[in-house]
């Protein structure tokens, strides 16, 4: 194994010696550090989420429970999974079964859930992307993946304008998932189909004052 390592590294050094090229300077003239007023970020983020055929529900923080409860009822959800650390008050108006996830639950049990409710770490308005990083309220990656409906609560204060601004919020050591709309494929004649292996429905509750 070390032999292969030394061989490959030796080959790279030989290659660079045989074909030396000048050091590259990376120009970063693309847009970074952008900001937009709340209303414009909300409008942009909403537009992009709808373009992905996600469901969007803006509300104030004190109406989170109503929003979550009404939406889950509307989709006929009877059993949800929630990660450790999720704000219990968000589920005050939901009357179905709630299963708290933990690492010992085998993935096959996650398939018994109708939906999952999580918080989020950050988002990017310009691309309609939500970032989950496994911190409290977001859970392990499998939890937001196996159930067919993902209801995700996003605070508008964590929604950045573009990709550079949102990536800057990430913590590299945390396992991170970027979600842009529900699962989709274009593999059959390039016709977009929502829902192959991941959640087929994505519902985003945006808390406009949080």
């Amino acid at each position: 194994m070390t032999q292969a390592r030394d061989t490959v590294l030796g080959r790279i050094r030989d290659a660079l010696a045989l074909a030396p090229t000048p050091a590259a300077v990376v120009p970063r003239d693309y847009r970074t550090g952008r900001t937009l007023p709340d209303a414009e970020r909300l409008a942009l983020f909403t537009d992009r989420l709808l373009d992905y055929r996600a469901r969007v529900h803006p509300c104030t923080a004190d109406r989170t429970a109503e929003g979550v409860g009404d939406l889950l009822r509307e989709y006929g959800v009877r059993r949800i999974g929630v990660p450790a650390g999720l704000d219990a008050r968000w589920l005050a108006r939901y009357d179905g079964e709630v299963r708290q996830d933990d690492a010992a639950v085998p993935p096959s049990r996650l398939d018994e859930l109708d939906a999952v409710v999580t918080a989020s770490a950050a988002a990017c308005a310009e691309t309609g992307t939500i970032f989950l990083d496994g911190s409290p309220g977001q859970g392990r990656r499998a939890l937001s993946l196996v159930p067919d409906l993902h209801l995700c609560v996003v605070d508008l204060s964590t929604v950045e304008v573009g990709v550079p601004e949102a990536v800057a919020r990430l913590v590299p050591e945390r396992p991170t998932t970027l979600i842009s709309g529900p699962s989709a494929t274009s593999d059959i004649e390039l016709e977009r189909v929502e829902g192959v292996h991941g959640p087929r429905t994505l519902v985003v509750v945006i808390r406009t004052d949080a």
Partner: protein
Amino acid sequence: MSTFLGMPAPPPRSPYGTGNLRGDRAFPRAAHDGLGNGQLRRNLGRATGTIRAKRLDVTGELPDWEALREAGSAIKTDAMNRLPELLEQLEREVTERGGTVHWARDADEANEIVARLVRATGSDEVIKVKSMATQETGLNEHLESVGITPYETDLAELIVQLAHDRPSHILVPAIHRNRDEIRQIFLDRIPGVDPGLDNVPAHLAAAARRYLREKFLTAKVAVSGANFGVAETGTLAVVESEGNGRMCLTLPETLITVMGIEKVIPRYQDLEVFLQLLPRSSTGERMNPYTSLWTGVTPGDGPRDFHLVLLDNGRTAALADAIGRAALNCIRCSACLNVCPVYERTGGHAYGSTYPGPIGAVLTPQLAGMHAAKDDPNNSLPYASSLCGACFDACPVKIDIPSLLVELRHQHTERTGVTPERLAMRAAAAVMRRPALYTAAQKASGLGRVIAGRDGTISRLPPPLSGWSDSRDTAAPPRETFRSWFASEEGTAALRAAAAEHDAATRGGHGTTAPGGDHDEEDAT
């Protein structure tokens, strides 16, 4: 203190006869299949047309698109320049966070490492995320040969695998199949599929979902590729749409990722560039539905065991070529395939390699060489292009593919010295130098009308001209050569008439030509 290490040796190409970097026929011959398949050409024309339009929409809405391309190109060039230190840093970071790093000199070594790791888990099956690297090494075939069953989980890869077919596009490997064919493949090959399954894409996708779900939930080992490996943090990135990637990367106990050494990028921040360039260039979306970023092993979340296999397989040989190494900057977005008039007509199989289209035509000979055997099919790849330049314009990391193709053509002619074109030109020059021979040759070429079909083209010339006609159709010669027409009664009469007309025009023409008109030459005399 420094040690003299001797002259650097040119690194080897991917070994001949292994993996999927070489077809069994030269491009022109293989292209005949695609050209003759109307269904394929209709599928491809529609698909690439759609995706081209989408890509232009979403790249056009970014005012800083060119700045992003500049940054992307420079980041990759910087990474290639500092490859040894970046790979060592990546290895250190992955190891510190609980992963294990392996190095593979070539495809066979990578395949053996993966098979050994799978066996060590006690499992005899793996689920797979779509990966160009393992397609390149022929991992599936190797695993099957040692009794391990690989399950492709990307919808298109699943279609290709069930049909015992080969992928024909980097991004949408089953683009050559239409919904009716896919329906039939599912009916024939998926155990227990609903016999009433129709050809609606949503229903076909649902059938794949049902088929694979149990595999996802029970598999112990997964194999993936990687779109990026961040040296600074040891973070790996997989970009996808369906969620099958997320399933494979998080549900099994063991994850094995095979990554070409050129996929390393220096900084975590660099993701901000590629996460804008890649989805917009490949599927024409602002962002792909799912991107997974993971760093080593995280207790309580995802696999307990993570292995990273770093693959050379000819990449160092490409790196040793000052011009060709630009091909290593490729981020596999497939934008160049979708704009290429040659790819659109021939399809991906004609290229014979895991990497089809314009980038495949430069990357494949770089990785695997094009003179490994007499009549190496790879030496036809640099000619599989009209050099129209559309691929260069579309490339998000600004790889100058047309120039690379020309350089490879140059290398090929330098190496072989003799090509059918050069032979033909040499013969033509010899004939043109001697008028009598030229007249005779022109008379003989009249025979061409006999071998041309009704459409007036010759698709097959006799040897030694067959080398020319192998890669192009030739128009049938005219009924009569100019020289023979010139010498005939008709020719002499036409010439006399033209001379008389000219005389009349010059005599009567002076008065009617406006001063400063286009008859300057006559005024001067």
